[in-house]
């Protein structure tokens, strides 16, 4: 296990009285895919959004390469740590514009056709209207637009939950492929343990706003993780 790309320490997040995150601890090793699992309402998505500061944690710290993210400009942080959501919300009149949205804002040069190729889409789709693509293709475009910013890490919030089986497999392969080719650190929220087994290097379990445990994939899917798996299955 390499050094930690992202480290979460005592992270809390409250909206009024409701404590959505309370004392979350986690370490995401450089170049690995960490799956975040747990029952719904455990705070998995909130954790991702706290990592790239789409929300402001009320306590604790997130470190990127050992540096507290509080000291970073949030816009800069979000360019370094990309995010892919459940639903691909694409901007612009063409797939090309959609892919280049973030890169253009930050004045970065990006080749839309090369990016489409990286996510396994044909370059000829560049001129199409984003809405004319299948949801699975749109989700891959939303991965491409995150890659356009050349991020150091990618947060994926249940990116396959809106997809059919075939499209889901495509995105899973894409995630493994990008991880292998670019060495991209990834944090992947999933509620599907078989999916976790297919893609994750590490598994982090959350429940009721807290981190419960971390395992390597091998441990999690062997006797060592049996209780954790039973816990998730019972609550899903």
């Amino acid at each position: 296990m390499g050094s930690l790309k992202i480290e979460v320490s005592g992270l809390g997040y409250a909206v009024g009285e409701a404590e959505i995150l309370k004392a979350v601890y986690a370490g995401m090793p450089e170049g690995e895919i960490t799956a975040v699992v747990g029952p719904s309402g455990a705070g998995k998505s909130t954790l991702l959004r706290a990592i790239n500061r789409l929300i402001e944690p009320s306590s604790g710290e997130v470190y990127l390469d050992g540096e507290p993210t509080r000291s970073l400009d949030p816009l800069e942080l979000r360019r370094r740590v990309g995010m892919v959501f459940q639903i691909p919300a694409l901007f612009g009149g063409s797939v090309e514009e959609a892919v280049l949205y973030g890169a253009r804002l930050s004045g970065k040069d990006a080749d839309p056709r090369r990016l489409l190729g990286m996510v396994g889409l044909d370059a000829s789709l560049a001129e199409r209207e984003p809405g004319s693509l299948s949801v699975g293709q749109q989700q891959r475009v939303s991965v491409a637009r995150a890659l356009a910013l050349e991020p150091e890490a990618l947060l994926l919030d249940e990116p396959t939950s809106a997809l059919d089986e075939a499209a889901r497999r495509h995105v899973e392969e894409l995630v493994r492929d990008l991880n292998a080719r670019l060495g991209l650190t990834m944090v992947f929220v999933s509620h599907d343990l078989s999916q976790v087994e297919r893609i994750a290097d590490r598994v982090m379990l959350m429940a009721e706003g807290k981190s419960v445990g971390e395992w390597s994939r091998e441990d999690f899917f062997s006797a060592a993780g049996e209780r954790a798996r039973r816990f998730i299955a019972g609550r899903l």
Partner: protein
Amino acid sequence: MAGLQTVLSALLTLGLVAVAVALSLYERLDLEKDIGVAVVRSFVQLAAIGYVIDFIFGLENLGAVAVLLGGMVLFAAWTSARRAADVPRAFSVAAVAVGVAAVATLGLLLTLRIVPPTARYLIPLGGMVIGNSMNAASLTMTRIRDDVAEQRLKVEAALALGATSRQAVAPILRTALQRALIPLIDATKTTGIIFLPGAMVGMIIAGADPLEAVRLQIVVLYMLLGSVSIAAILVGTLSYRSFFTPRHQLRTMPQNKS
């Protein structure tokens, strides 16, 4: 009281309001109470302002005119802020927008000597500027509020790609401003063909020279276009910030933050 008699005869048009109420009831629009309040309030307010204007015209005092216009701006801001309830700082936003729109347009009309600096011109023109700017302010604010709530996913996706709050909300602002401005632009385009503006009709009925009425109406239309644009753009620029933190985060509960 021949004056009051005249006003009371206007009440006969209430028959038409009854139709609106009946429609509201039939279609369950749940607007009849609102219509009732609007009818009563417009009657009381217009009757009152009639006496006030009569009094102020008598004064021919520009200080009093300014005070009255100022009061109208504050009342407009209050109305707009109530319409856009749960938009943080709605009152100040609307007051600034409507106030600047009124000062800019009336100021221009006076500086260019298009209208004389008398209460007889400034109060009715000011009323139109303020009223229309108020509508634009309410429309813009409520539209932004609704769209931010409805398009949370898109806004957050943009923020996650390194967009600033302003960049993330830009498409919403654009739609809101278009929605606020298009009705007036269309009304201006079709004026004289589809509908004759109220002020002009009033002047002609009251016996004014139709060409003088037209001249004033053109002034009014351009003035309204200018002031409504100013108000809508100011509201857009000032109010979108309320939905974000300074760190370019969408507020979790926009309606709870003040």
